[in-house]
């Protein structure tokens, strides 16, 4: 029996900017089950980070969030006030940010910050909190954990700081962790370690994870399910296997063609490209958001809202007017080229 941790229906975020209303997220649906990893992947400006912040209710004041449903563990959290949200954050819901330097307070020792994260939510003594902090620091692979508690963030390297952030997010044993580009600021070797660690911990504590990234490599390796986001919308969703082995939306196909893959792409050959730039999200949009850059664009693409269609059985969906047979043909052609 799967336990649904998060259920989101028609989530939209509008941001007021001088030029008008920027429709950063436009009615996306998704859910996360216990123990599952959902990856939201997209390029800069597609709305993936805003989605994360909106779940935590940490949006800037110029932004408004609307949703038909926003249920955490079966509880509707849309109308929670600031105090209720604060009780939730760090307890049931935790977030890991991209830049570990700025998300730790430089004025306090990491021990202090780790303990605080627990004392805020749990009725425990400081020494119990400290024991938990040491336990988790060791879990995230930091040696000499007890000594580290007295250190300040600036005394740690980027990789260590990100480990501390992960330990901090685990202090209260959350149901769901939202990680926004957790390894983008780190070197590849450290990135692999951190992702490995996240996957291990997730299995061990049976947590759910929403991982937000632009890196298709990470998505393929970590995700159970994938949502490809473009210009405020999901354009393709499915399991990692479905999305990577049989990409159906022209954008997903294009993205996968863009990256050089050692051993697969011919060295020095031309890589695939997606022409054009992301459309402005200010004001109303009609039809398919990808139409301006799509090589298969037709008149029908510009009419009304494009619906999701099933690519294969088992929840693999994509938002396009091309039938799954046509998109499979396009994929074959692109792979042959």
């Amino acid at each position, binding site marked *: 029996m799967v336990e649904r941790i998060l259920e989101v229906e028609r989530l939209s975020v509008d941001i007021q900017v001088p030029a008008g209303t920027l429709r950063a997220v436009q009615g996306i649906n998704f859910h996360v089950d216990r123990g599952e990893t959902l990856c939201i992947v997209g*390029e*800069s400006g597609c709305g993936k980070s805003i989605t994360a912040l909106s779940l935590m209710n940490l949006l800037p004041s110029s932004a408004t969030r609307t949703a038909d449903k926003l249920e955490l563990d079966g509880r509707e959290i849309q109308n929670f006030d600031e105090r209720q949200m604060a009780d939730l954050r760090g307890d049931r819901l935790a977030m890991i940010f991209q830049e570990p330097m700025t998300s730790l307070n430089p004025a306090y020792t990491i021990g202090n910050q780790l303990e605080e994260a627990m004392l805020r939510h749990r009725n425990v003594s400081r020494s119990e909190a400290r024991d938990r902090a040491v336990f988790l620091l060791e879990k995230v692979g930091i040696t000499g954990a007890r000594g580290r508690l007295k250190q300040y963030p600036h005394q740690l*390297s980027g*990789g*260590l700081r990100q480990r501390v952030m992960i330990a901090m997010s685990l202090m209260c044993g959350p149901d769901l962790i939202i990680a926004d580009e957790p390894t983008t600021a780190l*070197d*590849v*070797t*450290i*990135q*692999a*370690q951190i*992702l*490995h660690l996240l*996957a291990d911990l997730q299995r061990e504590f049976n947590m759910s994870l929403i991982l937000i990234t*632009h*890196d*298709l*490599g*990470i*998505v*393929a*390796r*970590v*995700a159970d399910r994938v949502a490809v986001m473009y210009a405020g919308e999901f354009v393709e969703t499915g*399991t*990692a*296997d479905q*999305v*990577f*082995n049989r990409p159906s939306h022209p954008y997903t196909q*294009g*993205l*996968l*063609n*863009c*990256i*050089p*893959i*050692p*051993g*697969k*792409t011919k*060295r*020095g050959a*031309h*890589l*695939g*490209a*997606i*022409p054009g*730039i992301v459309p402005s999200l200010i004001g109303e949009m009609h039809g398919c958001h990808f139409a301006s850059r799509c090589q298969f664009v037709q008149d029908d693409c510009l009419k009304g809202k494009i619906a999701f269609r099933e690519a294969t059985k088992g929840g693999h969906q994509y938002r396009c007017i091309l039938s799954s047979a046509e998109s499979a043909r396009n994929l074959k052609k692109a792979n042959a080229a």
Partner: protein
Amino acid sequence: MSKSVIEVAEATKTFMISAGFMRGKMPLHAVNGVSIDVQQGEVLGIVGESGCGKTTLARMMLGLLDPTSGAIKVNGQPVDNVDRLEVARQLQPIFQDPYSSLNPRKSIGDIVTLPLKVQGDPDPDTWKRRAEEMMEMVGLPSRVYNNFPSQLSGGQRQRVAIARALINRPEIVICDEPTSALDVSVQSQILNLLQDLRKEFGLTYIIISHNLAVVEHMATRVAVMYLGRVVEQADTETLFKSPKHPYTEALLGSVLTPVPGLGVPDTHLGAAYPNPIDPPSGCTFHPRCAKVMDCCSKQFPPTIPNKHGFVECHLYSQDAKPPKVAAKRGRAAAKKAVNGSGAAQKKSRKTRARASRRK
């Protein structure tokens, strides 16, 4: 026979940085005895983690930093002795961040014609036409000539930076992380453009990147840097197929190709990147190495040439002749250490011999 366009011989760069409150200054060997020859027409990839000295090395090649010791020659002439304009004509950089590499107060036209202006090009009348030609070649519409960088997208800005670098037709272009600030779809456009321009102008590239997939795609030869040293150098094919140095292996192992179901690899690189002010003894990689041996923490590893390049690791020292290699290496910065380790090496061979006799 191809000729060397850049020769780097035993270059070192030491920064004096403050080690902490009241602790005075400590030397940081950002680049610690690197020798690289860049052949005309090749694409040399330099990979390594942040802090390994790859950007410092690039800045020394460009003549923006003077090496503390060693020599860097561009087309046979030492880069620090020749007129800056002469070097600028042969060698141009493309930087990582297209948002900070263009002066926000200058129009695109001013930026692209600046190299002509600086070189004192004799026909100012042709500047605009030539800039527009160059812009067209890098895929910029000529109508952006009077626009400002803030009006362009990241990809377009990188194209402006490329146009500026190429308008004086240099032979060598040093690309420092040319695409890491760009989105995936834009990255492929820029990589394609760089490939096209290379064929068109017969350029030599030095591509510095932490993205191994990009380096694998673009480079013909790769140098792997770790803590200021080149630890392995080989042609791309060999390096990616059969990496020799354990660090190269770990680096390649951390590349996440978009293949579902493989999971995240465990690189076994336990400890974090060492503090470059206080590097580990012997082989600087030994605390993180999966194949560490006794000698690794004691002696500096020898440079062992092979037919594809070289590797700097104790694992391969049996088949080479260690004393000879050590003498040839002649690291200026650590000459004493080398001599010391030479003695230690002899000793360790003796103990090894004794051990085998006992068997």
